[in-house]
């Protein structure tokens, strides 16, 4: 039984990876400009400096890499938080991370945030905002050394509301030139010119994946309930803290670079739980890969749907993700 389960997992992993590779190639191949992939190899060796080379490797490829990092990162944050809180409605943004990041970015654009960072000022202020809010929520919810999960959730939701009210306040008094920058940031986009930043996010996202995989068994225990996990010999408080930290850091990094891209962290974990089951050892891996594939695919659709204009990627993640998920739910009795 055990070995057959592992081989099932391996098959799933390879299957999802094949999909990811397919999506990545598809995304490389389509866009506002027609470029056949067959030419890619030729371009790679001889095409430096041609517009086609630039489009493929300096415009499309960075977006795919960022989509991979952000999609995967958000998906496993969702898995971790849903497993830990044992609540199907929790997603990476529930704890106020997105609200904090958005507030940080807004303030940076309107009053000017960390100086001397140049183009890195926006992601830096987003990250600071996200971490600030998470720390606040955490500090309010912790008593003694115990994190009360139900409380952290409520505080998080309230703080999110407060953050969005504050954002509206900032937007109401801001200049028109800054306003559209804020709106665009909030809508979320995988366009990011800085290659170094993309590499950093990739590194953090993959690191987060590996780290959280080390906690997969603890997550399995935690999803039975805190008391059960304790009796199974899990150091509940330490694990909760570590998982909360991983999930917040991952989400904070993703949000600060790409803006608020919704739905990935909510739908992908559920969909994967439907397909591969709720053992976190496979669920984390499967969610990471399919979250990456999902976001890359959605971004590609957003790029080509009304070219030369571009839709906000959140439009597609919401429509595609929600649709697929409702379909999947109706096909099978799914309980969290």
């Amino acid at each position, binding site marked *: 039984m055990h070995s*057959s*389960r592992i*081989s*099932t997992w391996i*098959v799933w992993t390879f299957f999802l990876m094949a*999909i990811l590779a*397919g999506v990545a*190639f*598809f995304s490389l*191949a*389509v*866009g*506002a*400009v*027609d*470029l*056949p*992939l*067959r*030419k890619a190899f030729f371009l790679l060796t001889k095409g430096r400096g041609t*517009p*086609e080379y*630039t*489009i493929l490797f*300096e*415009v*499309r490829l960075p977006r795919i890499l960022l989509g991979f990092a952000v999609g995967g990162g958000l998906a496993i944050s969702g898995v971790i938080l849903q497993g830990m809180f044992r609540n199907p409605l929790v997603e990476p943004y529930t704890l106020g991370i997105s609200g904090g990041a958005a507030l940080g970015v807004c303030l940076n654009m309107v009053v000017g945030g960390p100086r001397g960072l140049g*183009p890195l000022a926006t992601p830096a202020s987003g990250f600071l905002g996200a971490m600030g809010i998470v720390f606040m929520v955490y500090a309010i919810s912790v008593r003694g050394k115990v994190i009360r999960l139900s409380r952290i959730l409520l505080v998080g939701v309230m703080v999110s509301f407060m953050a969005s009210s504050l954002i509206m306040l900032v937007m*109401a*008094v801001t*200049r*028109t*030139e800054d306003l*559209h*920058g804020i709106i*665009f940031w909030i809508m979320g*986009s995988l*366009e*990011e*010119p*800085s290659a170094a930043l993309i590499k950093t996010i990739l590194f953090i996202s993959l690191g987060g994946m590996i780290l959280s995989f080390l906690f997969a068994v603890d997550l399995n225990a935690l999803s039975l309930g805190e008391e059960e996990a304790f009796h199974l010999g899990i150091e509940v408080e330490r694990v909760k803290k570590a998982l909360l930290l991983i999930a917040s850091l991952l989400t904070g990094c993703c949000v600060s670079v790409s803006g608020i891209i919704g739905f990935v962290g909510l739908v992908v974990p559920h969909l994967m739980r439907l*397909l591969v*089951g709720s053992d976190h050892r496979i669920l984390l891996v499967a969610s990471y890969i399919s979250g990456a594939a999902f976001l890359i695919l959605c971004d590609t659709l957003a790029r080509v749907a009304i*070219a*030369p*204009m*571009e839709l906000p990627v959140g439009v597609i993640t919401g429509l595609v993700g929600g649709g697929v998920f409702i379909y999947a739910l109706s*096909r*099978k009795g799914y309980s969290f």
Partner: protein
Amino acid sequence: MKVFCSCSWGQHSRLFFYKAMLLAFLLLFFSHAFSPPLKANDGQERSFDIPRLPQRIVSLVPTVTEELYLLGVGDKVVGVTVYCHRPPEAQTKEKVGTVVDVNIEKIIELRPDLVIASPLTDHKQTRKLRDIDVEVEIFYEAKDFQGLCENFLRLSQLVGAERKAEKIVEKAKRELEAVKKRIEGIAKSKVFVQIGANPLFTADGGSFFNDLIECAGGINIAGDAKTGIFSREEVIKRDPDIILIVTMGIVGQKEKEVWLRYKTINAVKNHRIFTLDSYRVCSPTPVSFVETVKELVEIFHAQQ
């Protein structure tokens, strides 16, 4: 097949699901992989002539597009935004996006040697273009006629048409002076300009609209406002003689009806609510600025 049996989803439907997904994938993938390849070289000679003036210009600013045509280099424009309506010839050029959201791939494909952007263009996108060695010049919105002329002259230097630009500016200035002289001494009307509805949006003292109204012999009642958001109550209190609505077609008509409800406003009493063509008014060149001033003079001083 055994590996899939551990899940409770019916094996049959699951297999079908896979096949369908696989098929969809292959279709999507190959439909693009086998499209005809691009021509290796479409014979576009790269001229490195001595005065390296831009030969392929992408304009992301409607005003700049119009100005390029004024300067006689319209044939060098290879890409515009979907809002570049003036002159009509500009609409035949390749569209690369809107003012705030452009398609980088399209721009790269056009191989421009100059891209003109505005501060409204997504900063990430301008940075990206500069990273891949495309020359990007950013033109800020002019705050008055003077700024408009300076922008125009700066643009003319970029494309090597200074002479022509100076002549155009000279002529525009002369005409503007003539208009100002003509309306000297005539009583000024209080004017409210509406640029947007919900929230009510107007032109504050720092916008070129303010200059436009003053040049045409009007007083902008929102001249002291810090931002464009303005309350209707304030409009009623300040009681403008004229209301100008700068929005397109149907919306303008609807807004006019809204104003008609406030019967105490002078402009309503005297039926002096007018709508303006936003394409021309909102993206002014030195030439169209003067044209608009003339039109406003007609409106402001028609009954006096």
